[in-house]
C-alpha cells in the first residue's frame, strides 16, 4: 500500500532520549528512519543513500555541527535535504546562532510531540513538492495540498478514468477518498463524519499532504447512488467556479445585507453566504463554514458573482486601488466612491432603464421627468 507520503529521515546520535522519542513518533507516521552514531558516519551514509531529512542535536562545545551543515549544503544542494536541529537552548541569541547555521527548523526541548510531528510534516511537504511516488511501481502520485487541492485530486483521477485511493493528511488528521471508474465511491474521514460533510471538510483543506494509490479495483461502492450523485454535483460546481474565477481561489465582498428589510435583491441564503466573504476567503472555506447545503452554497456563490457582489480578491484590491481617480470636472476631487456606487447602481438598476432627462435647469444636473400623476402616486404611497 502506498498510503501517506513516507520520507526517509536520518537521525544522528540517536542515543539522546529525545531523538529516540522523535524516531519512534516518526516511525509511527510510517516514515523510514535511519540512524548513525556520529556526523562522520552520517556523511558516509549520505554518500551511499539519499535521505529527505536529517535530525540531530549539535554539541555546543565545538563547531563540527556547522562544518557538517556547510559541507552538506555544498554537496546536496539539489534536491535539498531538510535539516532539523534539536536543542535545549532557551537562550534567544543561541537559537539565532543555530538558525544562522542554515538549518530548516529548530525544535526546542522539551518538545510537544504533536507540534514536532506537524512541523516536520509541513517542512517536508514544502521542500518536496509534487513528485511521482517513489514506491518503484510508477503508479502513484504524492505531494502537497498547497499545490493540488482535494477537488483537483479527485478530478485528476476521474479524468484519467482510473480507480484509486486518495490518502490525505492535514496536521494529525487523515482521510481517504475512493474513486472508481470516474466516480467517488467512498469517503472515510478521521472523524467518521457523514460522506457529504466529510467531503466538504476535506475540500477546505489547503495544507497537508496527499498520495494517490492507483488500483485496478476498489471494490463494492460504499456510498449510495444518491450520495454519489450529490458528490458529483458538488465537484462539478466547484470546477465551474474554478473556471470562472481561476486561481487564487479567493473571493471577497464589501457588502453587508441587512436582514430585516431586505427581501427582493438577495435571498436569505445569498445573504448568509455573502457574510462569509467579508474577508478574503476561499470557496472551500465557505463550504466548510456555511450551515447551508453545499449545492446551495455553490449556487449562491455563482449568483453573487453574477450580481457583482462577490469579486475575486485580486480584482477587489485593484478596485480599491483605483478609487483614487482624478476627476477633471471637480478640479481634482477624489472620486473615492464612484466605482463602488456604480457597482451598486448596476445591481439596483437591472431591468430599470433610465428615465429620460428633461431640460437641464440652471444647474449642472438634470432630474427625472416624473409626471404629476406619478408624483401623486408617490405622495399617496407615503400618506
Amino acid at each position, binding site marked *: 500500500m502506498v498510503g501517506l507520503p513516507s520520507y526517509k529521515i536520518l537521525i544522528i546520535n540517536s542515543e539522546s532520549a529525545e531523538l529516540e522519542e522523535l524516531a519512534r513518533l516518526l516511525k509511527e507516521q510510517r516514515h523510514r528512519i535511519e540512524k548513525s552514531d556520529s556526523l562522520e558516519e552520517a556523511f558516509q551514509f549520505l554518500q551511499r543513500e539519499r535521505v529527505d531529512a536529517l535530525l540531530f542535536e549539535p554539541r555546543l562545545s565545538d563547531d563540527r555541527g556547522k562544518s557538517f551543515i556547510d559541507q552538506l549544503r555544498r554537496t546536496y544542494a539539489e534536491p535539498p535535504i531538510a535539516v532539523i536541529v534539536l536543542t535545549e537552548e532557551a537562550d534567544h541569541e543561541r537559537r539565532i546562532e543555530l538558525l544562522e547555521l542554515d538549518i530548516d527548523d529548530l525544535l526546542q526541548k522539551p518538545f510537544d510531540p504533536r507540534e514536532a510531528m506537524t512541523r516536520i510534516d509541513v517542512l517536508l511537504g514544502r521542500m518536496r513538492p509534487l513528485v511521482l511516488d517513489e514506491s518503484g511501481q510508477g503508479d502513484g502520485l504524492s505531494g502537497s495540498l498547497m499545490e493540488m487541492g482535494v477537488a483537483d485530486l479527485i478530478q485528476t483521477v476521474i479524468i484519467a478514468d482510473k480507480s484509486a485511493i486518495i490518502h490525505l493528511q492535514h496536521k494529525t488528521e487523515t482521510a481517504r477518498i475512493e474513486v472508481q471508474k470516474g466516480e467517488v465511491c467512498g469517503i472515510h474521514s478521521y472523524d467518521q463524519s457523514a460522506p457529504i460533510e466529510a467531503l466538504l471538510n476535506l475540500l477546505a483543506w489547503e495544507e497537508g499532504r496527499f498520495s494517490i494509490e492507483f488500483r485496478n479495483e476498489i471494490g463494492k461502492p460504499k456510498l449510495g447512488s444518491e450520495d454519489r450523485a450529490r458528490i458529483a454535483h458538488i465537484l462539478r460546481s466547484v470546477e465551474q467556479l474554478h473556471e470562472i474565477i481561476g486561481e487564487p481561489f479567493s473571493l471577497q465582498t*464589501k*457588502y*453587508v*445585507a*441587512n436582514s*430585516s*428589510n*431586505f*427581501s*427582493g*435583491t*438577495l435571498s436569505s441564503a445569498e445573504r448568509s453566504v455573502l457574510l462569509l466573504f*467579508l474577508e478574503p476567503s476561499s470557496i472551500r472555506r465557505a463550504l466548510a463554514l456555511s450551515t447551508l447545503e453545499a449545492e446551495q452554497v455553490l449556487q449562491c456563490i455563482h449568483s453573487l458573482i453574477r450580481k457583482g457582489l462577490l469579486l475575486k480578491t485580486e480584482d477587489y484590491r485593484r478596485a480599491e486601488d483605483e478609487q483614487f481617480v482624478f476627476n477633471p*470636472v*471637480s478640479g481634482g*476631487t*477624489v*472620486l*473615492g*466612491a*464612484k466605482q*463602488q*456606487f*456604480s457597482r*451598486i*447602481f448596476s*445591481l*439596483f*438598476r*437591472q*431591468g*430599470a*432603464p*433610465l*428615465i429620460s*432627462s428633461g431640460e437641464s*435647469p*440652471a*444647474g*449642472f*444636473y*438634470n*432630474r*427625472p421627468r*416624473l409626471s*404629476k400623476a*406619478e*408624483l*401623486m*402616486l*408617490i*405622495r399617496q*404611497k*407615503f*400618506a
Partner: protein
Amino acid sequence: MLRSVQRTAEIVVLGPSFALQKRLLTHLCNEVVLTRDNCAFGRTRISNELELYFYGLGESDKSKDFAWDLVADKILGFFLLFNWFDGASFQKAMETADELSRRFDAHGVIAGDLAENLVPVNEKLIGYGFSISERIYFSLWNSASKASSRALMRLLVDAVMTHTG
C-alpha cells in the same frame, strides 16, 4: 430575482449621522442594503411601473466623492439630515448644504431630528416644513417615528410638484 420596472427615480440621503440615514431608509423602503463602508441603499416600489431608490451616503464626507453624475439622470431630490440638538451636526449639515447648492440644484428637504429631545414638542411643528429657497425645504423630524419620516417624503414630493407646476 430582480424585478423589472419601467421607471425609477432616485433620492440621495445625506448628513453627518449614518444612524439617521438608516432610520429614514428603514422607514421609507421595503428593502435596505448596508455596505461595510457605511453606505445604505434602499428601494420601494410605488407602482408596477415606478420604483424609488434611496442612497444613504454614510457619515464621512462622501457627498464630495459621490458619483453625482451617475444619479444625475434620475435624481428626484435629496434629504439632508442632522441632529437638531447637536451643534457639530448642524455645522456639518450647513457645510454640506453649501456644497450641494454650489454643485447641484435638485429639490431637497433639510431635516432637524428631534428624537433626542428631552422636552415635548408640538406635533404640528414636525413634518410640515417651510421653504427656505425655491427648491429647498426645512422641516423638524422625529427619526423615531415612521409617520414623521413619511411626512418628510411627502414634503419632498410637494416641493417637486410645486416647482414643476
